[in-house]
């Protein structure tokens, strides 16, 4: 996946927090931004030790019990009715989820 050779600094600025909040779609208040930047820096500092904990030769583990090739057959399984699918929707119109106008283009 994405890679950057040097070890990152274990501190995080207010601007960085604002950028991350933007990526995560959270409208953090100024007070939260002030509060979070130093707090996250402390957490990052405390977890910095793992940089040296494992060398390049150690393979990653994503699941403790390694399974492969788990598939299902291409057979229809009963799903939800439209009513059930829409049951939690904040707004519905013409059997569709009604959402506010979309600004960005699709990917």
């Amino acid at each position: 996946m994405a890679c950057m050779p040097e070890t990152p600094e274990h501190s995080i600025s207010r601007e960085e927090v604002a950028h991350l909040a933007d990526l995560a779609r959270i409208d953090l208040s100024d007070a939260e931004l002030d509060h979070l930047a130093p707090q996250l820096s402390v957490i990052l500092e405390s977890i910095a030790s793992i940089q040296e904990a494992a060398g390049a030769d150690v393979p990653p583990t994503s699941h403790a019990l390694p399974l492969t090739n788990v598939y299902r057959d291409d057979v229809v399984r009963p799903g939800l009715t439209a009513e059930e699918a829409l049951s939690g929707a904040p707004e519905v119109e013409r059997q569709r989820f009604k959402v506010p106008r979309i600004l960005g283009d699709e990917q």
Partner: protein
Amino acid sequence: MSAERRTAAELAAALAAGETTSVEITQAHLDRIAEVDGAVHAFLHVDAEGALRDAAASDRRRADDSPLGVLDGVPIAVKDVLATRGLPTTCGSRILEGWVPPYDATVVARLRAAGLPILGKTNMDEFAMGSSTEHSAFGPTHNPWDLTRIPGGSGGGSAAAVAAYETPLAVGTDTGGSIRQPGAVTGTVGVKPTYGGVSRYGLVALANSLDQAGPVTRTVLDAALLHEVVGGHDPLDSTSIEQALPSLVDAARQGADGDLAGVRIGVVKELGGEGYQAGVLARFEESVELMTKAGAEVVEVSCPSFVHALATYYLILPAEASSNLARFDAMRYGLRVTPQPADGSAPSAEDVMRVTREAGFGDEVKRRIILGTYALSSGYYDAYYGQAQKVRTLVVRDFGAAFERADVLVSPTAPTTAFRIGEKVDDPLAMYLNDLATIPANLSGVPGISVPSGLADEDGLPVGVQILAPALADDRVYRVGAALESLLAQQWGGRLLDQAPELTGAGA
């Protein structure tokens, strides 16, 4: 003895013998909830009507001599992180307030298929992020041993409900200790099964590669009975294990004779000592001594990578969680907050997402989403998430080496007894330390149990001992757990919970 004081195994036996009915048992527990839950606040939602309806159906099956299983008719509570068709599921978050899932989690479907009436949904830290249940958007749960103290977390609601005799059984989920640590601080039993042993389908994911649902009970045998109901392969969960479980109930019954001859018990050097409360260590050492006397061979094992487990966990968890929680965006379900832009224009979907997520998530959730977004973001992946996955390999290897020398590993479950509500809520790092001893098992997928091991001398609050076994050897935690439980019960002349203060009259 009144119904709510009896264990699930005792209730099941009474039902089988026709001495009582599920409606009577269920009503007794609903009455108890009405009496004490105002003070304990273990439940976010109580479904009296549904539970009694299911209890009546169970009684008809018993009358027809066709019960669905041993626990048919024994009521249960479910942590609010599991989807329940027709019952609100909030995960302790405002963002899901009022959401009623149109489907059942596999665990819930199995409870229903086995005939267990569901009393309601239990309180938890928001999206299971926390170790105290103080991060619930709907207010904290109180420890039945001392209502000013936390019941552990994130599954404090399930543990407190069991400890307060509001339910004989509960389901919890454990990502870094959320079943075992609440068990320890409330004097109850909690089991985290082998990863993949219990289906995660319908469990609202915190950290997918760590989450596991399991039993929350007052006895080891009850936990085994419940584990056998909810466990086993599920084709809807790709990470579910296909191998059949060894008989856990048999293991618990076998262990109850207290004989540990030939069992090799490894004491993990890194899970003790500095940072652990004196009373916690004292009770732990007593338990080890007791097991030695019962024939166990005790060895010390070292798992050097465990010192990095907490850091590893706090990278993997926020990373996975930040992605899991992206779906809460006000479009399809849950909270929608619509801002009114100053220029009078109609708000966009993007605006609504930002404002809703700001309003709907609590501080700890936001903290972890930002941390996880950071750990995954371009340029940092290798240094953080990638590196954490490597350390995980070392943790797995350490367990492998340790289990060559010991059949089970033991440690205190949590470093301290229950602290006061509010004491650590603004100090995330101090809060994270509660899971020091429980996290390694999640990182490596091995099963673990917490069994009450007494009260700490300094505060008179419950302490738990953790027993870990190799992956797929869940039967070992039941056998050794049941043995320790009965050795301690002989010493105390009863269960630890018998020493808990009466809650009667503490109700709303």
